[in-house]
């Protein structure tokens, strides 16, 4: 019997400090056993449990894309015991990884316009999705791609080099924004994500899906904007956060209604969420 609780051992290959507050670091992980990489076959939007021996596990969205071979990337915010310990680790240290966990909805998105709306450090799995869709082998599977991504300030944006590169391309429409800045050279938008969404996002129709990931307050104010733009609830896809342990729908704590957020989510359409207790 394969033990779904047993992590694959991985080595920290690179650590990048992403934001000016130094609370977000990206960890590039390489499997110790190359076979494990085969077994860890994932899609953007899924997550994994990072396992620190002696400390415990944390569920983190996968920031790399399956089109990027040879490594996995996770961008981790320093919050609790395990993430604090992870932030103090160095290149070469050994940790574990379990997954991929959670579902994805790429079958639904095939052949559609995709509008990605992200805020703050929740952009990680959205980065994975963008890289995946922009891959030459996949790009033809999608129509227009829009990205609205906001952070408090320019220094709090994740993956700034990649954002700049995407800005120069013509197969993706970037709408980067910050809440405010005193940088006179800032050449992108200033304003909250809901406002920019209202200005830049294409109207909703049966061929267009919105993927939202961000802090609750952003989601709260973006949702009415999408309603106004004509997005139906089954064309709005969101990600929930819950305290998790097992990640495979067994330990019980991320239960909402009859769903386990770890296994039946963490991605849900708003139409699905409408029928679930609002307990997240």
């Amino acid at each position, binding site marked *: 019997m394969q033990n779904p*609780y*047993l992590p694959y051992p991985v080595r920290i290959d690179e650590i990048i400090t992403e934001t000016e507050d130094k609370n977000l670091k990206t960890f590039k992980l390489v499997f110790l056993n190359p076979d494990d990489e085969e077994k860890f076959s994932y899609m953007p939007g899924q997550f994994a449990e990072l396992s620190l*021996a002696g400390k415990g596990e944390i569920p983190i969205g996968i920031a790399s894309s399956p089109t990027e071979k040879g490594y996995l990337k996770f961008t981790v915010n320093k919050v609790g015991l395990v993430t604090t310990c992870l932030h103090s680790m160095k290149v070469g240290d050994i940790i574990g990884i379990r997954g991929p966990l959670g579902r994805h909805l790429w079958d639904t998105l095939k052949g559609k316009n995709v509008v990605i709306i992200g805020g703050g450090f929740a952009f990680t799995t959205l980065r994975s999705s963008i890289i995946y869709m922009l891959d030459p082998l996949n790009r033809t599977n999608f129509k227009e791609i829009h990205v609205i991504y906001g952070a408090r300030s320019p220094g709090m944006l994740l993956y700034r080099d990649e954002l700049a590169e995407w800005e120069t391309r013509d197969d993706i429409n970037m709408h980067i924004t910050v809440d405010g800045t005193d940088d006179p050279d800032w050449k992108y938008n200033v304003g909250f994500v809901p406002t920019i969404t209202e200005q830049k996002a294409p109207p909703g129709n049966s061929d267009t899906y919105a993927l939202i990931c961000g802090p609750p307050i952003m989601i709260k104010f973006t949702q009415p904007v999408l309603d106004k733009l004509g997005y139906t609830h089954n064309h709005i896809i969101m990600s929930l956060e819950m*305290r998790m342990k097992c990640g495979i729908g067994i*330990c019980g*704590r991320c*239960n909402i209604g009859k769903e386990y957020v770890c296994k039946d989510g963490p991605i849900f359409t708003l139409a699905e969420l409408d*029928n679930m*207790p609002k*307990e997240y």
Partner: protein
Amino acid sequence: MKYINIDKKSWASGLENLYENYRLFGPVKNNKHHVFKELSKGELPDLNYLNTLLSPKSIVFPQSETMFEYSLDESKEDHHILKEINKDYSPRALIGIRPCDAASFLLVKRNFDTPEYKDPYWLSAYEATIFIGLACSSPCSTCFCTSAGCGPFHEDGLDLLLVDEGKNFIAKILTPRGENFIKSAGWETEADPTAAEKIIKDMKIKAEEKIASFVSTDQLKNKSTTRLYDAPFWEEIAFACINCGTCTYACPTCWCFDIQDEVSKSSGLRMRNWDSCMFPLFTLHGTGYNPRNTKVQRVRQRFMHKLKYYVDKYSDGIQCVGCGRCIRLCPVNIDIRRVCDIMNNYGSRSRLET
């Protein structure tokens, strides 16, 4: 169907024989209560009991269980890599388990044995266990098994059903594993199937007649989840609750657990421990946000999970076998029978007083 007569005089010697092939577990009186524990050689289970204080779920799902071990010593080659632990999954027999508790294992199995993931610890222990039931001739006043999908002579989940007939037990063999068990004990006297059938049937009817409490569950499936969730009665139901974990720990069908690491110098263990939806920590985010921050929310989660979410998820009744332990042990007398009826009748014509 095959029936064996076990003369109580040969009970002890049979167990002695079984001890060679099985780890034996059974109810034993410990101070004031009956509890399930592993029997030492020569120790007999006390089958003269109403029901055990706690359910026997811990035989398959211990309150604390190690999952992995590892070394933190960086001079070791495999440091920080988690390793599986060898565990004793040799055959074990759970003797004298009540039919309600036996049924609970089938309910819980749905959680640990899913199409996508198998929990190796629970399943290995479960598969190593053979379930020797003891039919229940004197149900307690808090028992409502017959309206919770089982009953005092229920056979699901059992390999063998023992019926106490005074001087002897009639053993009804339900599976090949049960048959092996009987053989291993050396109990050979076959009973006349028709007569045995008749005796058991009569006793079963008598026992079922003694069940005095019931829940109504027929409407639960039809109710809207969000309407039940938003119903006004939860504040009143939850008022007395002190948010201890007694109900969940005593319950045979509660399965939630926590995973924790513990270390000693340079060696470490990953272990899992029972957890409870009654505890605020259960859902507390790292950021300090807690989606189930109030007592009312937590009480609602427990009952909604057992009586609605589970019903919707598996379409096979409630996540409860009617053993009545939570009713007997709740320090403040929150009664699942009452809650179940309130939920079942919510929005119907004859709404119960809330």
